[in-house]
């Protein structure tokens, strides 16, 4: 008896499993034939419940009449309960009625007739029917609940899988493919994604043919309008399509259209809610991606800053120390009488000094460039005489300007300027160096300072190659170097960038003008001057 029961259960499970898996398959694929589904869902369970009744009968028959009749109420409950738990109320009811009929026919006298002699036995059979119907009802309800739970669990499982995939998304395109995969495979629904373009429009990512009504709706959507939530019906197929925006807090990333098929209002509502829950999850992920990107940017920024600081520290210490030793040693050698007497050795010592000075200038350039941090330069403002600044710049670039004539001219009564004189001196120095670089040896570089409408203008004019309008536009970019000079004149392209950054940090402006190629260049620095005239100050200062 036990073995029979086990076999029966296994068989039922196997059958139920196959039906279950087909059911799942059916829910995945809308295209499955309706008649086939009806056969699987409705007819087969009825037949199987009858088979179950038949199997119990086959077991009872050899036992002989009185024993079998006694076992009837218990034995026939088995196929009824199995049918109820596996296939629901209708196969169970059918099994109950079939069991009643078969038992009456085969095991209650008169045998092989549906009549029953003994009134007790009539009561027994009726009782059996009532018990089996009630228990099949209960069991089938239990089955339904289990089914619902399982279904929910599966949904939750899928959603969980989906959010896990979302958590692993590092780019927007990862995210889009996750949404598409999830919606298409897990929900069995057709999904189309439209990416937001710069023009405020949406563009389909793949050229799938979508219903006209969806395409028109997408075309009518403008990114600027908030939270598009539309549903529409594709007339030819009667499918309902939903259209929603995919967005994070700050940006709209695109539109997603999903086909949720046909069905009753409840089914459509349910699917809509589910779809919206998924989009909610997506928008959370997008937010996370936004935050991550911002953090990544901040991290890079910080690293750059640290690198710059390290570079600055290394340059100013590790490079300056050997440089000091070389320069200092050369200067000591230079002052030794024995070396001064020998022209050859003396020229070698001078060569060392000159090269060190060049190296020093390059390092100073790099140090200046690292001083320009992302937040700009922080100048230490102090009232200064523009003449002092210009003179210091000319003096410090003395070696670089040695091949040129430098003519300085200062207007009388120049106002003082409130600047970081170190930075402005460096800016002037860079411009002087450029003037020397891009003009022939022996030509004149004129430096002048004059007052103009409460501003002090320092101009540096050379007689060199000039500048084309095209080059003028590109000036000021870090590391810009004109194609014309790249092969012939060495340089890093940092000079003008440093100069303009330093001048701007002091509230000034820098202007480059040229009458054209080969006509020389004038670089002018305009700095805010003191509102007090120098003559007024003189009276106050010396009273």
């Amino acid at each position: 008896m036990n073995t029979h029961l086990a076999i029966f259960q296994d068989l039922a499970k196997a059958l139920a499993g196959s039906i279950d898996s087909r059911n799942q398959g059916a829910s995945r694929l809308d295209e499955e034939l309706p008649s086939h589904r009806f056969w699987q869902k409705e007819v087969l369970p009825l037949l199987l419940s009858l088979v179950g009744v038949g199997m119990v009968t086959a077991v009872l028959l050899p036992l002989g009449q009185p024993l079998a009749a006694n076992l009837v109420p218990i034995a026939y409950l088995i196929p009824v309960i199995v049918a109820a738990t596996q296939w629901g109320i209708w196969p169970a009811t059918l099994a109950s009625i079939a069991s009643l009929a078969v038992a009456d026919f085969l095991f209650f006298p008169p045998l092989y007739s549906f009549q029953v002699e003994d009134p007790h036995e009539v009561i027994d059979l009726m009782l059996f029917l009532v018990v089996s119907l009630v228990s099949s009802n209960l069991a089938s309800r239990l089955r339904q609940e289990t089914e619902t739970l399982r279904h929910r669990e599966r949904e939750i499982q899928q959603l969980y899988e989906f959010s896990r995939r979302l958590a692993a998304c590092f780019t927007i395109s990862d995210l889009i493919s996750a949404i598409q995969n999830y919606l298409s495979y897990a929900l069995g629904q057709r999904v189309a994604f439209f990416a937001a373009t710069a023009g405020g429009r949406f563009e389909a990512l793949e050229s799938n043919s979508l219903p006209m009504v969806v395409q028109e709706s997408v075309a009518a959507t403008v990114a600027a309008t908030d939270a598009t939530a539309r549903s529409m019906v594709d007339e030819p197929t009667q499918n309902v399509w939903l259209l929603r925006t995919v967005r994070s807090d700050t940006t709209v990333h695109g539109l997603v259209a999903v086909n949720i098929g046909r069905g009753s209002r409840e089914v459509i509502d349910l699917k809509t809610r589910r779809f919206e829950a998924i989009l909610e999850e997506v928008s959370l992920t997008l937010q996370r991606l936004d935050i991550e990107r911002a953090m990544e940017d901040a991290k890079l920024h910080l690293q750059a800053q640290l690198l710059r600081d390290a570079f600055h520290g290394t340059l100013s210490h590790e490079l300056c120390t050997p440089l000091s030793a070389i320069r200092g040693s050369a200067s000591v050698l230079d002052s030794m009488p024995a070396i001064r007497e020998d022209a050859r050795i003396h020229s070698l010592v001078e060569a060392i000094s000159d090269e060190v000075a060049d190296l020093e200038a390059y390092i100073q350039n790099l140090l200046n460039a690292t001083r320009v941090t992302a937040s700009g330069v922080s100048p230490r403002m102090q009232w200064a005489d523009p003449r002092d600044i210009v003179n210091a710049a000319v003096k410090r670039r003395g070696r670089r300007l040695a091949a040129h004539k430098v003519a300085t001219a200062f207007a009388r009564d120049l106002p003082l300027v409130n600047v970081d004189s170190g930075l402005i001196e460096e800016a002037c120095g860079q411009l002087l160096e450029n003037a020397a670089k891009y003009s022939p040896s022996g030509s004149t570089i004129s430096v002048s300072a004059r007052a103009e409408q409460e501003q002090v203008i320092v101009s540096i004019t050379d007689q060199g190659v000039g500048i084309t309008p095209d080059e003028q536009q590109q000036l000021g970019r870090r590391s810009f170097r004109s194609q014309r000079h790249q092969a012939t004149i060495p340089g890093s392209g940092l000079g003008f960038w440093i100069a303009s950054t330093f001048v701007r940090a002091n509230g000034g402006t820098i202007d480059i003008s040229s009458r054209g190629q080969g006509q020389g260049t004038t670089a002018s620095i305009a700095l805010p001057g003191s509102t007090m005239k120098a003559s007024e100050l003189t009276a106050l200062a010396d009273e």
Partner: protein
Amino acid sequence: MNKASNVVLLIDDEPKIRRFLRAGFELRGFSVLEAENADEGLKAATFNTPDLIILDLSLPDLHGTEVLERLRSWSNVPVIILSVVSNEDDKVRLLQAGADDYVVKPFGMAELLARSEAALRRYFKTATENPVVVAGPLSVDLVGRTVSLNNNQIRLTRKEYRLLHILATHVGLVVTHDQLLKDIWSGNQRDNIQYLRILVRKLRQKIETDPNHPRLLVTESGVGYRLQARLENSSAD
């Protein structure tokens, strides 16, 4: 200078730097002591009483500023700072803490020697000595309060003379803006650096051959002014 041989103490952790400093100073007739850290340096300063200390700011055991402060708590010995920091605020802070002058690495030996000698001259100056300071074509009689340029006496206003007087008593050495402002405008104008700039401009008109290109009264950008002891050649060291 005024002794047979001045003793200079070099406090620097870099042997390469000490080597050329030693050579440079010995060539100029100094006797040289060396210390490679602050601890040794302070001991040497106490027991060997040098006439001049060359102090590097970045020492392994103690920051140079700290060494300077400890030295200044008991000694007036001239101190010249070697620094890689070309930051004006730091220079001013060091000068206020009692340094006589500074040179920024990399520097030439001539520059350091000029500063050193100026500091020694000021340190050893006594009242009995000639009270006339000569700076190139300029001579300032600190007692007679007269100024002459190429032997022609020139007239200065009270404040112009005051400025020149302070610079002349520190001839060859830098004097900070703060110190000048404090000594010239002791009252409420002492923060007004614009006045100082203009006063310097006026003084230059009177003492410089070309006031637009001053060679005597030179500007130390962001720090102060310096009266050069002698006219520099136009090519800088």
